[in-house]
Structure formats: structure tokens, C-alpha cells
């Protein structure tokens, strides 16, 4: 069973290849460069490095968001097109889940986090137990302050992971105090091996795989708001 893993949902580019239980290759670059130019050449180079041809692949696993809209779309488009045209199954997993799975083997709550600007984050809550990951609170787009207050109510320590959680550390620590621990730079991004470890998840029809943006397009949100107002004034 040869699997290709792709995550381009943030500016980090993560690609991995596994064969059975062996992680054959991992490639991560953590620079703000154009995914559209780099992803396919990176996949081609990594596969050629381990003497793998497209036809050898048995499965694709892709992070389908949340994250950068364009980044997510590039990864998902490549993954679903490859899976469809190679007639192999695809599993789409949360980019936040794969970041949580990149945490060290602990027992307890893990909170992966991507920055979403203006005090907002893309985040979710996961429980790591016996090396298995379980979703506790679903992925969402939320003000970091609201999110921390919600986590505080659980009354359990939470490990924050991901390089973009670092910029919110102060706010998180102020609200959660000793209930918050930070992996910071030791778990900066999704490790391809962690994404590969989630490949046993539900298989989907490639044509049905879509990004999870966790947020409406701005035009759509504005339109809904305007129509809500209109309905209210019509009443």
C-alpha cells in the first residue's frame, strides 16, 4: 500500500510518501512561496527520489482545510484529480487534525491553531489517547478570546500546537493561565508522517472531495447579512 500525502493549507508545504508501515519520504518547506508553482514539481521530485511512479500509488490523503483558501484549493485540486485519474481512493482529513496528530505522544487535549487574521483563528479541539486522535470540538473559525473561554470551562489542560499559535500565546495564557501549555516551535506545522497516519480514515469519491473553508466567502456573508436585515425590516 503506497500512499501520497499532501498538505498545502497554510504556507507550509508538506508532502509525504509511505509504503505499508514505512514512511519512505517526507518533505516540508516552511517559506512563504507560491504553492501553485511548487507543489507538483515537489511531488514529482520526491516520488522520483524513492523510485515511485504515479501508477504505483494506491491512495492519496489530503488536508482539505481550513486554512488559506487558495492553498487549500491547490492541494485538494491536485489530490482529487490524481486520485480520480489514477482510479485510487482518497481520504480528506482536517489540516488541523493532522497538525494535532503531529504533537508528541501525550495523553490529553491538543489544540491545533492557524491564524485567521483580525484576532480570529481556525482551530479545533482533539484528544490524543493511546496514540489515537479523536475530535472533541469541531474545526471552526472563531475569535481566539471566545475560544479560550470555551476551553477554560472544560477544566483540563490543553496543549497548543502550530507555529501560528505562537502569535496568540499571550492572549491564551492570560485567559487560561496554567491550563494552557505551548508546544510552540517544537510542533510548528503538520508533519507528513502525521498526515499519513490519518490515511486510514473514511474514503471518499474523488469528485465529492471539497475544501472545508470553515468560513463563508466574504461576498456570501455580506449578502446573507443584508438579506437578514431586509427580512427584519419587511416584518
Amino acid at each position, binding site marked *: 500500500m503506497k500512499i501520497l500525502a499532501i498538505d498545502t493549507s497554510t504556507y507550509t508545504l508538506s508532502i509525504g510518501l509511505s509504503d505499508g508501515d514505512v514512511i519512505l519520504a517526507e518533505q516540508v518547506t516552511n517559506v512563504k512561496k507560491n504553492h501553485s*508553482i511548487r*507543489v*507538483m514539481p515537489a511531488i514529482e521530485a520526491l516520488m522520483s527520489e524513492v523510485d515511485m511512479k*504515479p501508477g504505483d500509488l494506491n491512495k492519496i490523503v489530503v488536508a482539505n482545510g481550513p486554512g488559506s483558501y487558495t492553498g487549500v*484549493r*491547490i492541494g485538494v485540486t491536485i489530490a*482529487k484529480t*490524481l486520485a480520480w485519474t489514477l482510479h485510487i481512493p482518497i481520504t480528506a482529513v482536517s489540516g488541523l487534525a493532522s497538525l494535532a496528530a503531529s504533537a508528541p505522544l501525550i495523553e490529553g487535549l491538543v489544540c491545533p491553531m492557524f491564524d485567521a487574521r483580525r484576532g480570529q483563528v481556525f482551530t479545533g479541539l482533539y484528544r490524543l489517547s493511546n496514540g489515537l486522535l479523536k475530535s472533541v470540538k469541531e474545526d471552526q473559525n472563531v475569535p481566539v478570546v471566545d475560544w479560550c473561554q470555551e476551553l477554560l470551562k472544560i477544566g483540563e489542560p490543553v496543549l497548543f500546537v502550530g507555529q501560528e499559535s505562537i502569535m496568540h500565546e499571550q492572549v491564551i495564557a492570560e485567559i487560561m493561565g496554567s491550563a494552557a501549555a505551548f508546544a510552540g516551535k517544537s510542533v510548528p506545522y503538520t508533519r507528513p508522517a502525521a498526515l499519513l497516519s490519518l490515511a486510514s480514515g473514511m474514503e471518499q469519491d474523488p*469528485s465529492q472531495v471539497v475544501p472545508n473553508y470553515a468560513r463563508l466567502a466574504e*461576498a456570501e456573508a455580506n449578502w446573507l447579512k443584508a438579506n437578514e436585515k431586509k427580512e427584519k425590516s419587511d416584518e
Partner: protein
Amino acid sequence: MMKKDIFIFGIETSCDETAAAVIKNGTDIIANVVSSQIESHKRFGGVVPEIASRHHVEQIIAVFEETLERAGLTFQDMDAIAVTKGPGLVGALLVGVNAAKAIAFAHDLPLIGVHHIAGHIYANRLVQEMSFPLMSLVVSGGHTELVYMKEHGSFEVIGETRDDAAGEAYDKVARTLSLPYPGGPHIDRLAAEGQDTYSLPRIRLEEGSYDFSFSGLKSAVINTVHNAEQRGEEINPENLAASFQASVVDVLTEKTVRAAKEYDVKQVLLAGGVAANKGLRASLENAFGEIENIDIMIPPISLCTDNAAMIAAAGTILFEQGKRDGLDMNGHPGLDIEEF
């Protein structure tokens, strides 16, 4: 020995149509599938780039699947993958470009990036062979250009709009007349029922120029409506639409005829979404009907609007010329036709 047939799989996602096609030898449509998003953009009064990109990634595999099914072929039968690499909405372009790269990689096929306007021009080759030199009038929501071609794959822009594209002016005038988006077809329909009574200006710019300008005309329409309102007079929408259309069509026809004569071309091609406009088609057919030795070619309406058949048709010429793109190909929102 018989020449082997060339099959090109084309992909187009530069705006609000998700499209794929298979073309044989650059001239025969084997399959041509277009999934339009127009309904979901209507409520916004125009194409919203982020929403267009979202639809493309949702629809693309279904469009590919239907294309291969209708063609009765697989990627093993293809000689290359051609895809629009620009100009267009960058997020939308990137879906098609990355899907094309994935297919090219999976099946070890050549990858060919195509200029969207070159595609519109080559739509004509799906109807009748092109003969050179030729002049193409490209009119769409984003473009108004006169493109001279001395041979296949060679494009020289001899005139272009200095402000609004013709299609943009149509949409803005339609909005002024409270017509729904997209406004072009509504203006065309109203114009057919009205008379050119409002004596709107013909903006021809300086002597000898092949450039266009439509923003002054658009303002003239808005002022006409505004002045009528202030005087408490009723506007006749049919007549105003007819007057606006007459001005656009007069200028387009006059410049195209002059360019065709000066460049001594054998053929004139109409290309782009506004080529669906009945007033423009009739005027060009009329004008060139009276000129000997210059053929006018106007593709059927289904090939005027965005589609992937035209991209595969243009891609076939590039394929034959040995042009190739790498897996590092990007989407180029402002791609120049003379340099692509």
C-alpha cells in the same frame, strides 16, 4: 503513411465556467462540456472571484468525467493536456492549472498553457479553416481588441480598449436600465425592438487609431437617464438600448473594416462572449458582405462564450509547434497575448 490523429484534452476555468473538451486535429469537437455558474453569481450582480474558485474545485471532476464519457476516450488516447493559464481570475485559473498538471503528471502527457483570448480566436477553427493573414475582433466582458495574425500562433494587438471593455459597458448600461445581470443579452434583445433615437456619441479617438474607448459612451447613457429623470420625462428603454448598441456596433464595425483593409487580410474573425450579440453579428456580416476577397467568420454562439473546446483547439497548434509548459506552470491573471 497516414498522419496520426492528434487528440488534445482542454481545460478552461478562467472565470465562471468550468469546462473541459476533447478536440481532434485542432478542428473536430469530440466532446465539449461546460458547467456554468452564472446562476450562483446573479444575486451578487457580477462574478465573485472567491465563489467562482469554490465552484470550480467542486465541479471539476464531474466535468472531466462527463467529457471523457462523451468522447468515449481515456487519457491514454490523448496527446497532450491544454489549459487556460491566463488571463482571468487568479484563484479560478489555479484550479484548472493544477488539475491539468495532476493529469499530465499521472499520465506522463505534455502540458500546454493557453492564452484565453487565443482560445476565443481559435474557436473559429472548429467551424472553418483559418486563412492568413487574418484580423480578429475580440469582444468580451474583459476585452475589446483587434488582433492581427500573420500565421498560426502569432498574435499582434493593433488596437485595444483604453478604458472599459465593450462587455463591461454593456453590463453597466444594463444596470442603469435596471436590467438583471448579465446585461448584454438583455440590451441586445431590447435593442432589436427599439430605434436609434438618442443620438449618442461615436467615440473614435484620434485619426487612424484602432484603439477603443467606451467609458464616454457609458457616461452619455447614464447622463441621458439622469437628465430625463430631472425633467420628469420617461426613458424609452428599447430606444436607449438600440441607441447604445448602435454606437458600440458602429465603432467596432468601422474600425474592423478599416483594419482588415489596411492589413490586407483574407479573413476576419469575431471572437469572445460579445460575439453572441445579434446586432454586432448582423452589422459585421453586412459590412463584409459588400467587400470582396475578405471572408467574415462568426462562430456559433455556443463557441463564443467561454468553453474548453477553443482552448484545446489553440492548444493543438501550440502542440504542433512544440510549445510545452512544465509542472511549475502558474496561473497568470494578466497574461499578454503577444508574449505567452
